[in-house]
């Protein structure tokens, strides 16, 4: 910490003294580089942190600069008043451009935002208020008492302060509640939704942040150059900005800044060979994407990893694991069980779910009493996971009704259900791969709503205080689940059994009333299955109702009080484990699939690669959470 403070201090002093060593041309180039750095931070927040491909950043830049230019030259505003309006106008534009993100993602979003950016360029080239292709000249100089900003040297300090504050704010966002949720959304928007993250609002927030930085950069640009013209905001410059972010490292804001400043300086240095420079940065982008997708910012950690691997060798991994190990689960305090006559917690009435003529669920009715452990079994493709998806809001039932805790939740969104007290795990683990184990837990613990982001703008201490509280609770939870040793690890690097436990811990973070476990024992060894049974019982004893899908019949028999059997999308039996096993329909359904015994299941692959889509995924609609093989089988039955 001391070292970091010292580095920061040294950097600040160096930045402060920099102009003393530069000529007037160099300082101008540095000023331009800082403006690009601000733009790149915004781009990094949208693209790297939130996973929203935003190719309209240069248009946000333009909106900021043009609004300022129009207000100061045409409407007689002072520079700073105009600057405030300009930033607000840019944010409004950002929210407008972000609307398509609610319906589509990835390359679809990229093209739509690029198209809107082209539309903006077209508008400023035509409209008379923007001066058409000739642009607007004569923008007044920003004034600060006692400081003559016509000197580019002093303008540098203005930019430096804005950039430092911008970077500081960006880092603050990334490392606290909001940024963590944005990153969780980037890694897995479905799981984030199941953890209570309001995905639509978060996507808009990503665009809000990007446009905020775009607007600030635009204001600084207009104040520096004091002339705006459409060419500055061209698509070519958009791609250069993209290259800056990719080369620097889109997931690290510091990387974005380094990329922006670095590429601006290199391009200037190579300005006499601009075609070769273009060739060069194009090649670097391709190489970066192929070999170093995390950019320059990711190189130190990759290098460290490489050295570690060299030093320890592969065989000694186990030794390292010895020191960090999974500790025993510490049971929750038991509460009194509610009487069984109470109203059912979950009530599913005649639910049917069709996929393009395939009936995955057929008139399923089911009630689960509070405090129960319910097992759901059935052959592959019988509709178990589809049922979970309907309950947790990922699918909307074609007909029928779902009621949770006395409310109708048939059409509720996953995050609403999460807030109501439904938590779930996934058959094929959906941990946030780029977040640490601790952050995975923190995302789920965080129950604040997205609208509280006003605190980021106006009351940062509130954010900090909340953050401290969350971290304390996360530590408790990690210790309870015996995961404290792995708190700072990337989930993907941990053994499968530990990942399963992290998922349960994450689902329990919000202290749900109903916990849905989708094949929690899949891939676990005998000892781990035993531990799992203990954990599930303790969870139930703490007052959370549990519904689990499981193929491991030994576990189901020992754990569940009642079992529902699904086959071909319908309920064929329900009762105590002993009753169900004896039912002739059940025996028939299982014949040919497998006997009512432990089925050796293949070790699931933790993170299946996204399948190439012969027909595209609905770009906006959420692809439902199920592993490709079993899901497609379920659908094709």
């Amino acid at each position, binding site marked *: 910490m001391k070292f970091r403070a010292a580095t920061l201090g040294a950097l600040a*002093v160096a930045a402060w003294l920099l102009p003393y060593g530069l000529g007037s041309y160099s300082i101008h180039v540095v000023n331009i580089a800082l403006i690009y750095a601000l733009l790149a931070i915004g781009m990094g927040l949208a693209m790297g942190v939130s996973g929203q491909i935003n190719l309209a950043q240069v248009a946000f830049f333009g909106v900021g600069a043009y609004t300022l230019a129009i207000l100061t030259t045409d409407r007689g505003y002072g520079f700073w008043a105009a600057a405030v309006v300009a930033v607000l106008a840019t944010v409004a534009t950002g929210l407008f451009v972000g609307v398509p993100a609610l319906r589509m993602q990835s390359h679809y979003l990229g093209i739509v935002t690029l198209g809107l950016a082209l539309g903006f360029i077209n508008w400023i080239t035509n409209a008379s208020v923007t001066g058409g292709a*000739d642009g607007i000249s004569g923008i007044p100089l920003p004034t600060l008492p006692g400081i003559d900003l016509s000197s580019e040297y002093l303008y540098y300090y203005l930019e430096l302060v804005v950039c430092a504050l911008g970077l500081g704010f960006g880092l603050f966002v990334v490392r606290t509640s909001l940024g963590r949720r944005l990153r969780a959304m980037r890694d897995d928007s479905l799981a984030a939704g199941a953890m209570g993250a309001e995905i639509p609002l978060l996507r808009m927030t990503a665009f809000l942040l990007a446009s905020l930085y775009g607007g600030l950069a635009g204001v600084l640009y207009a104040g520096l150059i004091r002339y705006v013209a459409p060419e500055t905001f061209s698509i070519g410059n958009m791609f250069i900005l993209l290259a800056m972010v990719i080369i620097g490292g889109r997931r690290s804001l510091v990387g974005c800044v380094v990329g922006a400043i670095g590429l601006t300086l290199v391009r200037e240095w190579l300005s006499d060979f601009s*075609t070769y420079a273009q060739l060069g940065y194009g090649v670097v982008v391709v190489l970066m994407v192929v070999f170093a997708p995390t950019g320059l910012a990711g190189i130190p950690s990759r290098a460290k990893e490489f050295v570690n691997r060299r030093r320890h060798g592969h065989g000694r991994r186990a030794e390292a694991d010895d020191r960090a190990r999974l500790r025993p689960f510490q049971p929750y305090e038991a509460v009194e069980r509610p009487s069984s006559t109470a109203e059912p917690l979950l009530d599913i009435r005649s639910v049917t779910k069709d996929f393009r003529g395939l009936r995955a669920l057929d008139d399923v009715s089911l009630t689960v009493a509070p405090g129960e452990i319910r097992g759901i079994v059935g052959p592959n493709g019988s509709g178990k996971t589809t049922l979970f998806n309907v309950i947790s809001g990922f699918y909307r039932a074609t007909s029928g009704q779902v009621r949770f805790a006395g409310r109708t939740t048939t059409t509720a969104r996953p995050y609403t259900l999460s807030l109501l007290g439904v938590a779930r795990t996934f058959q094929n683990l959906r941990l946030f791969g780029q977040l640490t184990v601790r952050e995975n837990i923190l995302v789920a613990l965080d129950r604040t709503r997205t609208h509280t982001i006003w605190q980021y703008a106006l009351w940062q201490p509130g954010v900090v205080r909340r953050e401290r509280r969350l971290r304390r609770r996360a530590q408790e939870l990690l210790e309870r689940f015996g995961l404290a040793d792995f708190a700072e690890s990337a989930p993907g690097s941990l053994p499968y059994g530990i990942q399963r436990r992290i998922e349960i811990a994450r689902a329990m973070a919000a202290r749900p009333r109903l916990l849905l476990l989708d094949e929690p024992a899949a891939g676990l060894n005998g000892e781990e299955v035993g531990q799992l049974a203990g954990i599930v019982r303790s969870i139930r004893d703490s007052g959370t109702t549990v519904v689990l899908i499981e193929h491991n019949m030994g576990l189901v028999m020992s754990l569940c009080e009642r079992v529902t059997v699904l086959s071909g999308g319908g309920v064929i039996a329900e009762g105590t484990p002993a009753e169900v096993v004896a039912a002739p329909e059940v025996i028939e359904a299982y014949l040919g699939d497998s006997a009512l015994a432990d089925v050796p299941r293949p070790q699931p692959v933790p993170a299946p690669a996204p399948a190439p889509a012969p027909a595209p995924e609905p770009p906006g609609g959420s692809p439902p959470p199920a592993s490709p093989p079993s899901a497609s089988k379920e659908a094709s039955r």
Partner: protein
Amino acid sequence: MTRSSTPRPRTVPRATARVTTRAAVCTAAALAAALTACSAPGESDDDTKASSGPIKVAVVNAQSGQLSSLGDWEYKGAKLAVDEWNEKGGVDGRKIQLKLFDDQGDPTTGTNIARRLVSDKYVAMIGTAESAVTIAMGPVLQQAKIPNITSGQSDGLVALKSPYLFLNGPTSTTYDSTLAQYLVKDKGHKKIAMITNNGSFGKGEHDAFLKAVKDLGVTPTTDQVVTTDQKEFSAALTKIRSTKPEVIFIGSEEVEAGLIVKQARDLGITAPFAGAAPQGTPVFIDTAGKAAVEGTIVSSPYLSNDVSAASKKFAAAYQDAYGKEAELHGAKAYDGANILLTALKTSNGASGEELADAIRDTRYKGLLGDFRYDESGVGITKTTIGVIRDGELVPQQ
């Protein structure tokens, strides 16, 4: 030459914004560092004039991007003039050192270059062909007192009112009022259609021509505006066709104008087109096809390489140096460079204000005509009318 110096403020910037703790610490540290330093940063003033050694002149033009061909022509023209002067021994025995900067058609890059010209003590600048870039560079060059002879023709350049900015050709107004005079007065056309693009050049042409014909009492039959990167003009051209014009004014760069004329002929429009400088270039003729451009009326200060002895000599030298045929843009830059060098000679290698005054006082008989600068920085206000016959632009008899 005088240098731009940084006015020294008496106080140090105060950080007034509310900041996070860490940022506050940094700011405080940095502020302390600034206080310990004795003065605000800036380049020291030195008024020492470089009166020996080569005279540094910059050519700033797009060498990449969409306008790069224009940039290339102009560089060739300017370089030819400078090479000729250097062969004759330069100015007062000092060689002219010409350096090319690539503005990429981007105003921001332009301002970078402007600062560099100041830093590297360039005496004068030739270029650019893109009005927006020149306008962005203007204030910096004006402050540093570096004369700039631009190839732009936008009236926005004149509106800048910089005493250091000179045009090496006529403005759009000159091109188009000459053309309007010819079409309306000489030819008696009453039905004139217009098609222009919304770029800097096209918009300038649009406004200048519209004003010129209206002054002569003619209202265009239709006024179609297209974008600079449009490829398909059926809608606009069909509208033009339905108004049955006698002549169609076109305000667009070479390639797009070529496409428009080609598509117009395919749609059965037989009326001749009329336009300014771009319509006289080989690129326009090649893009549209020889047959399509037959009869196109062009208002230009430089109709062809054969109009005078001087132009023949220039064309031959150009052919010798580059193996290519000379055209208007090269001729303009050649004239501009010659005017600058003449002024340098008459002022004995002066710079700054003195050089700008010398340029204003220069009377130069060039390829485009007789230059005589006024306060607005325009040196020539005359174009001639030519017609394309058999793929060649020839003076109208």
